């Protein structure tokens, strides 16, 4: 049996550099979990349907199960672990999920958090319809969508509060 060729890959994740040796077929989702030890990214369907593995690639949400680690070399990747503030406190989207009971089993949550974080950058003041559209590509098998929609709208409020405080100070 021939041994599979390994590639030296330098991944930039959450501001750190991870040097990993992986076969070309290693999915980015698996590289993040197994090679970088960042198990916050969850793997659901592995064919791009469920959205649990969504990470930010240069700020844009993408399915990490539909990318190869070897093809992610030039990108800055943000996983759910990278969403928290520098002092370790929850980001506005994370805080909103906590406030609104936006998660039940929590399996889909990392994908929702990354998707909504990027979504609020593009649409900072979403209507309820826009909030639903924002999360339309992510599945929650607990079907907790009502509270996830509330969380999007709550995150919008928290961000506005933070901006208000910043502009006052």
């Amino acid at each position, binding site marked *: 049996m021939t041994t599979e060729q390994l590639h030296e890959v330098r991944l930039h994740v959450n501001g750190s550099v991870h040097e990993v040796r992986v076969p070309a077929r290693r999915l980015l989702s698996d590289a993040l979990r197994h090679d970088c030890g960042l198990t916050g990214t969850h793997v659901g369907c592995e064919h791009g349907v469920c*959205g649990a593995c969504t990470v930010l690639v240069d700020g844009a949400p*993408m*399915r990490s199960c*539909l990318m*190869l680690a070897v*093809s992610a070399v030039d990108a800055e990747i943000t996983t759910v672990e990278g969403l928290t503030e520098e002092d370790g406190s929850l980001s506005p989207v994370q805080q909103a999920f906590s406030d609104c009971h936006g998660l039940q089993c929590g399996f889909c949550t990392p994908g929702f958090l990354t998707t909504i974080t990027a979504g609020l950058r593009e649409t900072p003041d979403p209507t309820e319809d826009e909030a639903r559209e924002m999360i339309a*590509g992510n599945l929650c098998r607990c079907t907790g969508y009502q509270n996830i929609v509330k969380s999007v709208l709550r995150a919008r409020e928290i961000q506005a509060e933070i901006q208000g405080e910043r502009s006052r100070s």
Partner: protein
Amino acid sequence: MKPAPFAYLRPSTLEEALAALAGEQGAKVLAGGQSLVPLLNMRLAAPSMLVDINALPDLGHVRVAEDGVRVGALARHAEVLASAEAAHAQPLLGMALSHVAHPTIRNRGTTVGSIVHADAAAEMPMVLRLLEGSVDVASVRGRRTVPAAELFAGPLESTLGHDEIAVQAFFPGLAPGAGVAFQEIARRHGDYALVGVAAHVETEGDAVTRARLGFVSVSDVPTVVDVTDALDDPAGTALTELEPADDIHATAAYRAHLVRVLAPRVLAAATDHARSRAGEAIHP
């Protein structure tokens, strides 16, 4: 749900990529990978080599000229959709692209890749065919331009050779007096359409001089039907050329029903669009 092993190349020049493809019969091109990687994960495809073109220069363009819109092989759906200039030159691009999967997929998937993937359930192959566009193709043997009418050979099969890369797609602009429209029915916005219909209508004064409909998910290959002589019953004419099929998502009869609902509706919308544009041209 893991890909089978393959060799991997990430060339930095087009020449290098073309040489690699020419030298390996079982090689596949990797661009956005939003169709290819699911096939790899499910082991429905097992290429011997992937030639990753994401590091190639000069292929990410969305270029608008007088004659239409040129989209490079590395332009992501989201980038094409974000171009107001492109939407102005050819409004059908924006109308259809907003239905291509979910935004997260559009951030990675490429428009040219979707076209040469040749899925009859995808919007953009049909759009290229309806607009009578073309694809520029490169290989070590040289370059050629393939008209959309000669691009699709069968289900998920284009007429490109294994050694060729589609480097650019060309969508002709919308002529004055012409109009377009697009609608699709899906269980959720962003899912594959049960049926999608686009229309391209040309008018002179009040008269419709040419009318064509393009269909998604009701045939094996992206299909366009000329309904210029069937403006009263476009669906009846179209259904003689379509082959709606049963699958887990919908029955053939339901798909035929959706064709009957959507075809007249979209044809009317494109005709209105054409007339409103003709009005604008006269009274700017």
